[in-house]
């Protein structure tokens, strides 16, 4: 495969008609949340710009991001890895292995210095020099630093690379940190989720390829196009929330009727993602759609904000897990007890002073 083919060349070689190519461009613009007037820009970029080389590293992760990615339906996985991006290195998907594969990575880093995208799936263990995550005979910490040095931009795939996910949940035995804690001098796009929606992943890559810039990011570094609104605000069960019609137990009638899962611990009201818009597996469904409360997987440290099935988080307080209301009630009780005790002492003192005064008189 020639290394500087454009997308249009690849489409043509694959026997895709121009009509289908334009359809694809329109669809991509929809997923990116762009106005129809931007479609020509996408067409132009895909026709004229050489494909963006991508190096895809895997650190401490479960590969669920890759699993999600290969289920993308617009476009499909075959399109992506053979036609759309030039996925030069991915130790999970590559046919080659070992030194051969590592050589490919180094060659890409040299040939496209400062031009390739580094996609990172998984986070980095930094405790004990990163010995808890060894890939290809070196610590992932070293590999990441080496590969990030010449990258144009970094995409942090999933909750692991973006915020840390389960590996750095309390007590974080391997000292795992998100990519942004290790790489400070490169622009990083965070695409959180456990895993992120596949169309979101392909959309981010296409945006970078089309405009040559990062998409607009929110305060957490997530692309606004996909993470600007809460699941709650686009949820099809929102009417039941406003009406106060809640599921109270997973086997009650309300569950069958599909009422709001707020009382079952749904994190939709505090989670920014596109699940209730784009949905999963080609728009088949999403967690709330199949009757399970959202666990908030695209939010920072969501594992430590549990339990998943209650509304209020439990907070470690004086060695025991407690929620905000328990702490509040205890504090109010303590204040009342303190006031009562103070009143009692005042009364005793006053009575005593009174007796003394009477004695003096």
């Amino acid at each position, binding site marked *: 495969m020639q290394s500087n083919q454009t997308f249009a060349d690849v489409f043509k070689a694959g026997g895709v008609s121009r009509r289908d190519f334009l359809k694809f461009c329109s669809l991509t613009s929809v997923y990116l949340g762009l106005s129809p007037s931007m479609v020509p820009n996408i067409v132009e970029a895909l026709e004229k710009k050489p494909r963006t080389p991508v190096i895809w590293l895997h650190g401490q992760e479960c590969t669920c991001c890759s699993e999600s990615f290969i289920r993308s339906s617009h476009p499909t996985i075959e399109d992506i890895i053979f036609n759309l991006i030039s996925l030069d290195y991915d130790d999970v998907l590559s046919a080659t292995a070992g030194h051969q594969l590592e050589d490919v990575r180094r060659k890409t880093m040299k040939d496209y210095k400062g031009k390739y995208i580094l996609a990172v799936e998984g986070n980095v263990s930094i405790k004990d020099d990163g010995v808890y995550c060894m890939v290809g005979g070196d610590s992932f910490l070293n590999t990441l630093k080496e590969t990030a040095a010449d990258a144009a931009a970094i995409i942090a795939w999933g909750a692991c690379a973006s915020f840390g996910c389960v590996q750095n949940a309390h007590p974080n035995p391997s000292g795992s940190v998100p990519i942004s804690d290790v790489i400070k001098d490169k622009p990083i796009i965070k695409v959180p989720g456990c895993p992120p929606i596949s169309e979101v992943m392909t959309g981010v890559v296409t945006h970078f390829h089309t405009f040559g810039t990062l998409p607009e990011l*929110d*305060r*957490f570094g997530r692309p*606004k196009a996909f993470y*600007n*609104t*809460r699941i709650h*605000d686009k949820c099809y069960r929102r*009417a*039941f*929330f*406003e*009406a*106060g*019609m*809640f599921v*109270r137990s997973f086997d009650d009638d309300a569950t069958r009727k599909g009422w709001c899962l*707020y*009382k079952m611990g749904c*994190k939709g*009201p*505090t*989670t*920014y993602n596109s699940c209730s818009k784009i949905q999963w597996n080609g728009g088949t469904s999403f967690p709330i759609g199949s009757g399970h409360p959202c666990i*908030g997987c695209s*939010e*920072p*440290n*969501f594992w430590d*904000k549990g339990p998943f099935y209650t*509304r*209020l*988080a439990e*907070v470690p307080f004086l060695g025991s897990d407690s929620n*905000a*209301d328990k*702490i*509040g*009630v205890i*504090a*109010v009780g303590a*204040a*009342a007890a*303190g*006031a009562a005790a*103070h*009143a009692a*002492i*005042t009364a005793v*003192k*006053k009575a005593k*002073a009174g007796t003394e*005064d009477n004695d*003096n*008189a």
Partner: protein
Amino acid sequence: MGRLIEEIYVWRLPVRLYHWINALCTVALFGTGLYIAFPLFNPPLGEAVFYRGMSWWRYIHFASAFIFTANFLFRMYWAVFGGDKYGRFGGFRPWSPSWWGKPFREQVESYLFLRSKEPNYVGHNPVAALAHFLFIFCGSSFMIFSGLAMYGENNPGGFNSVWFGWMIPLLGGSYTLHWAHHLMAWIFPIYLIMHLYAVFRHDVVDRTSVTSSIITGYKHKVEEEPV
């Protein structure tokens, strides 16, 4: 009964109005806030369009929150520009040794029964001023800022989202912000208990009619009780 020596006009109308509007709003906010976190009642079966089981509570919460905020801003204005001897910030100088030193220590000692003679203040004593600063000024500010940040969440890029949205990453995410807002709400009942106790106790011990002063505005100095 000691004879009345003097009647002092302490709490002017703006201060009294602020106090009662603030009290009512705080009660409404705390009650509706707890309900929003734990919606108790179930509507009868039927279509969602006919019920307001959650939106009414939220509406009351937001409406009283905006009254609470406006009232708070008004009180800040009054404290700075009102020229009110007993209702201004001028008397509160925790950075100054003259404030932090003897008067504050004496008041604390008095509350801890370490002094027999109570220091007497017409307005707020230094301990009360500190409590108001922490609970009412800092507490209300946090609740207002975090509340507006959450209120702005359903309109990304809107006014509240732009001006108060920075609270979300500061607290580590939307969920943690909700949680902190919920936890901090409990400082108001705690404050209420301490406040009522202190008022009643001072009224009984000092006989300055401090309880009724927040309605009438007047405090009284009375003669030492004849022995």
